[in-house]
C-alpha cells in the first residue's frame, strides 16, 4: 500500500513474499507501487488486461477498486490483504493483529521500568486501532497500573510514510515518561525506532521482523506474516482458493519475533509468560478484544 515498498514493514513483507516465490520457482511477477488512490483501478485493470494471474493486493484501500474490477475480469483470480471483498474470484486474507499486539504488549509491560509505554499508529483507522487496543490489553494484563500513551501519526495515507513525524511523536512520548514504544505505522515506524534507539529506550517493530534495525534496542517485532500470504497466493497461481481467510496466533499468521538481535532483551520468564498467553489464545481460553468488532476498546481510549 501507499508508503513505499521498502517501508521495512507491511509493504516490504508483501514484497518479500513475492520474492521468495520468485526465488523458489523462478517465476516472474509484475509489480507496481501506487502513489495515489485514484490510480488503483487503472493499475488493476492494466494487470488484468495483461493476463497476470493471480493479482495480489496488499492493503485495504484496494477494496473498492477491486469490487469493480473483479467483476469485470471473472477469469482472473485476486487476493487482497487486510480487507474482505465479496466476489467469487477473490481471496480475502485478514489477520488477527490484536492477538499479536497483545503478546508484544505483554513484553512491553514486562520490559518497562517506568510503567509507561507508548503506541504510535500510522493512519488513524479502525485497523490500526485494532493494533493499539490489543497492545494495551496485553500491557494491562501484565501491569494493571501501567499507562499506555497512544498517538496516531495522521488521518491520511501520508501517515504511513512520515518518519520525521514519527520521530517527533516518539520524543513527545519519551517526555511523558514512555520507555517502550510500539510503532504500528508502516514507514513512519522507521523514525520511531530510530528515535527510540537514539534516546536509549526500547521500541517494538511491526509486520516484518524489525529487530535487526537497531540491534539490542528493538525489544521485539509484532510479526504479521503478509509475506506468507503473498507467497501462498503466488504458489497457488491460477488455482488460488478464493474466499475468506483468517490468520491468527493459532495458525502462525501473527506472532512476536525473537532472534539474536533481541535475545538479550527477552528473559526466559518473559518468554514463558508470553508463550503461555499465546497458547491460551490458540485454545480459546484467552479472548483478546478485537476493536473492529464493535469499534470500542476496553483498555484504551483513542
Amino acid at each position: 500500500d501507499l508508503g513505499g515498498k521498502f517501508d521495512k514493514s507491511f509493504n516490504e513483507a508483501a514484497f518479500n513474499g513475492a520474492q521468495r516465490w520468485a526465488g523458489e520457482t523462478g517465476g516472474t511477477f509484475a509489480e507496481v507501487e501506487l502513489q495515489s488512490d485514484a490510480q488503483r483501478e487503472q493499475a488493476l485493470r492494466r494487470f488484468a488486461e495483461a493476463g497476470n494471474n493471480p493479482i495480489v493486493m496488499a492493503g485495504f484501500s484496494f477494496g473498492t477498486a477491486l469490487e469493480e474490477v473483479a467483476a469485470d475480469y471473472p477469469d482472473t483470480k485476486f487476493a487482497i490483504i487486510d480487507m474482505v471483498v465479496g466476489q467469487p474470484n477473490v481471496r480475502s486474507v485478514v489477520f488477527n493483529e490484536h492477538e499479536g499486539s497483545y503478546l508484544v504488549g505483554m513484553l512491553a509491560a514486562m520490559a518497562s521500568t517506568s510503567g509507561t509505554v507508548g503506541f504510535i499508529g500510522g493512519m488513524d483507522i479502525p485497523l490500526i486501532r485494532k493494533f493499539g487496543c490489543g497492545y494495551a490489553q496485553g500491557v494491562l494484563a501484565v501491569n494493571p497500573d501501567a499507562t499506555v500513551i497512544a498517538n496516531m501519526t495522521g488521518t491520511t495515507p501520508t501517515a504511513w510514510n512520515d518518519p520525521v513525524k514519527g520521530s517527533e511523536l516518539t520524543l513527545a512520548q519519551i517526555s511523558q515518561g514512555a520507555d517502550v514504544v510500539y510503532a504500528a505505522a508502516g514507514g513512519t515506524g522507521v523514525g520511531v525506532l530510530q528515535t527510540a534507539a537514539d534516546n536509549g529506550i526500547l521500541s517494538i517493530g511491526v509486520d516484518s521482523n524489525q529487530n535487526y534495525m537497531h540491534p539490542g534496542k528493538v525489544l521485539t517485532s509484532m510479526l504479521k506474516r503478509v509475506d506468507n500470504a503473498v507467497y501462498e497466493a503466488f504458489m497457488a497461481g491460477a488455482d488460488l482458493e478464493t474466499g475468506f481467510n483468517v490468520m491468527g496466533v493459532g495458525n502462525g499468521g501473527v506472532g512476536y519475533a525473537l532472534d539474536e538481535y533481541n535475545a538479550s532483551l527477552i528473559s526466559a520468564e518473559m518468554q514463558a509468560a508470553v508463550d503461555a498467553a499465546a497458547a491460551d489464545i490458540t485454545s480459546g481460553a484467552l479472548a483478546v478484544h478485537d476493536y473492529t468488532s464493535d469499534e470500542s476498546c476496553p483498555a484504551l481510549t483513542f
Partner: protein
Amino acid sequence: MDLLTLLQVLDSSVRMATPLLLACLAGLFSERAGIFDIGLEGKMLVAAFLAAAMASVTGSAWIGLLAGIGASLTLAIVHGLASITFRGNQLISGVAINFFAAGITVVIAQSWFGQGGRTPQLGDGARFQSITLPFAESLSVVPLLGPIYKELISGHSILVYIAMLIVPLTWWGLYRTRFGLRLRAVGENPAAVDTAGISVVRLRYSAVLICGVLCGIAGAQLATAEPAAGFIKDMTAGRGYIALAALIFAKWRPWYALMACLLFGFLQALELRPDLITNVIGIKVQGQLLSALPYIMTVVILAGFVGKAIPPRAGGEPYVKER
C-alpha cells in the same frame, strides 16, 4: 502543564522553526534585492534530498550538507537566469522550481535507492546529532534556568545553532556593511544602484545565491539533523510558503523573522501534542484543524491583520534599463 512539558514543546518548536527560519532569511536576502522567490520550498526539498542521499552514501553529514547546498544553489541559479538574465516572471519561475523539485527528488530517489522515493535511514555520523552544551547536566539542578538550559537551549543539532547565528549576521550584513546597503537599495530602486556605477545583475545574483545557500542548509536540517534521519517525499510540506508568510509578517527584517518563525514553529510543535491542547483548554481539538493551523495563520497574517507590510518597492519586477 508542567515546566518540563512546556520545555519539551518549546524545544520541539525551536527544531521546527529552524528550517523555517533559514528559508525565511533566504527569502529575506532575495526579496530585499527585489527578486520574489516562491521557490524556497523547492530549493529546500532538493537540498533535503541530496543532503540525505549523499550523507547516506558517504556516511558524512557534512558532505551531505555541502551536496544539499549545491543542489539548492543549482535551482537558485535557474531562478536567477529566469528572473534576472531573461527577465521572466518570478512567480512562474518559482512555481516551476517547486514542481521540478517535487518530481525530481522522487524520480532520482527511486532510481537511486529504490525505496519509494525515500532515502535510506541515516545512521549515526551520517546525520547531525544533538549537541549537549557544556554543563547542561550539572546546571540542570538550578531551578527554572537549569532545565531551560538543558532542555531548551542545549541538545540541538549544530545546524540549529548555525541558523540562530545567521540572524544577527544577517542583521549586521544588511545594516552595517556596504553590501547590505547596496542590497537594500537594489530592491528599492535598481536604477539608482545602476547609475551609481554598481552592477544590478551582479548584486541580484549574489542575493539569489545567498538565498540558495540558506535554503540548502534549511533542507539539510530537515532531512539530516536529529531526530530526522533521511529524506521522504514532499517532506518540506509547505514550509517554503510558510517561511514567505513569516517574512511578510516580519516585514523583511531579520530579528522579526526569528520571532515569526518561532511562532510558526510553535504551531507546528503543537500539532504533535494534541493531548496537551486537550489538557489545557479542556476540549478535544480536531487533528486536522491543528495541522491546518499554520496555513490558516499564514492567511490571517497575510490578510494584514497585523498591520501593513510594504514589500521592497522594486520587488517582483525585472530590471529593464531599455524598454
